[in-house]
């Protein structure tokens, strides 16, 4: 059973089981394909609509990547600013706490109204959705410098800026990683919701369109591509975080 212990083998086994279960449900229940197509039909649709799916997937992936990068950059910059400036903490922290109570997804229609049906509105929805978790996780990490290291900074007469970059920031990297983990989970939701609200391109748009035309197999194909995108995103992040942590000796 040694071959079973590789993660690839286990993954393939789980995938095979899931497909079998899916096909089994389709056969056993006898539901028509426009309600629930079997894996075979979806596979065929994936193959025949590959150029179409590719076109829309590219749009979605680009918005996802840009929104993610911009949201993370903005969140990191905000957290660093808050950690450095008591004035900024006084003014911005209540807003940040309040903003976490607002369901940011619900802002998607307003953002689409302001920014139109193109890529910018999707990018901004992704940015907004991930901005708050990244900011608050990183900021909390920055402010949780262990007391002995705080003493060290005082003894060595560190300036606030050097204290931030030499002590607080490396100490906050694990917290930033958990903020980023939330971000990569939320971002694919956010980009699809942005497209559902109003778009003429993207996998979210394709799903709505296929649904409207009764092309359930195409809808499932788009869903699979979307899931694959998310999975690639997660594994990229995990590989990156593991590499960083190893380098940082954590």
């Amino acid at each position: 059973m040694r071959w079973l212990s590789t993660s690839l083998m286990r993954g393939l086994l789980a995938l095979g089981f899931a497909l079998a279960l899916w096909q089994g449900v389709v056969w056993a229940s006898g539901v028509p394909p426009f309600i629930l197509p079997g894996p075979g039909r979806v596979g065929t649709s994936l193959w025949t609509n590959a150029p179409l799916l590719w076109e829309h997937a590219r749009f979605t992936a680009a918005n996802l990547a840009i929104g993610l990068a911009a949201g993370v950059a903005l969140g990191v910059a905000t957290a660093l600013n808050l950690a450095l400036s008591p004035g900024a903490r006084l003014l911005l922290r209540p807003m940040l706490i309040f903003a976490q109570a607002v369901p940011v997804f619900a802002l998607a229609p307003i953002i689409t109204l302001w920014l139109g049906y193109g890529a910018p509105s999707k990018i901004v929805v992704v940015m907004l959705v991930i901005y708050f978790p990244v900011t608050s996780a990183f900021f909390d990490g920055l402010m949780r410098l262990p007391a002995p290291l705080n003493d060290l900074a005082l003894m060595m007469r560190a300036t606030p800026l050097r204290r931030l970059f030499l002590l607080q920031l490396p100490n906050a990297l694990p917290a930033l990683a958990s903020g980023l983990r939330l971000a990569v989970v939320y971002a694919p939701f956010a980009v699809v919701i942005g497209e559902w609200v109003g778009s003429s391109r993207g996998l979210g748009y394709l799903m709505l369109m296929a649904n409207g035309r009764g092309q359930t197999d195409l809808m499932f194909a788009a869903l699979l591509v979307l899931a694959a995108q998310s999975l690639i995103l997660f594994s990229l992040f995990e590989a990156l975080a593991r590499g960083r942590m190893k380098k940082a000796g954590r």
Partner: protein
Amino acid sequence: MTALRICGDLWMGAAPLIRNLALEMPAQRWSGLLGPSGVGKSTLARLIAGLPGPYRLEGAVGAEDGAPLAGRVAMMAQEGQLLPWADCVQNVTIGARLRGARPDIARARRLLAQVGLKGMERRRPDALSGGQRQRVALARVLMEDCPIVVLDEPFSALDTVTRLAMQDLAAKLLQGRTVILITHDPLEAIRLSDHAYLLGPDGAEVLDLPASPTPRDYTAAPTLAAQARLLARLHRADPALCAG
């Protein structure tokens, strides 16, 4: 020179911690401050190092020369204050980097060799033993090159044999500095101090120490006798002192 003097009452919030303090810590000598846990030893360390805390001194702390202490005190604490993400060289040079100065890497490597960590310069604290971590902390104190050094129970987390080795090393390398050794270990105070106080809530009293030079031989009769006397005193001392 950089002799130190503390006098007055030390308060923790609204409660008195140590009254009638009158500590003289002569220049270039080791002064031991011995006391049971909870008596306020670490508070004294923070006071001398200029670190903030919920304490208050009604009195004065300062160097005999009248110049401010800030910038002339290095401290080594029980947990070493090492950065878990940084290697030995980076840990030793953190002071310079925090002040925005150029770290002297060559000197850091020399000091690490002096404390017996040659070849381990690239290791991080989690790849070092407890004794090795305290060696890094000692190298950092030497790197800071301050005339006054506060050792706040620096070896109390180490096993007995490692502790003795670290005591010898610190005694050798910190020679010529004004060292304040804060400890709850009678043998440590007796081995290393030129001059020591026993701390209690009502003040500090000067301890009798053997005449031999430090670090004292822990097998010699005067050292053992002094240790025995001190242990007997601490053991039968008033219950408040032993409550910890």
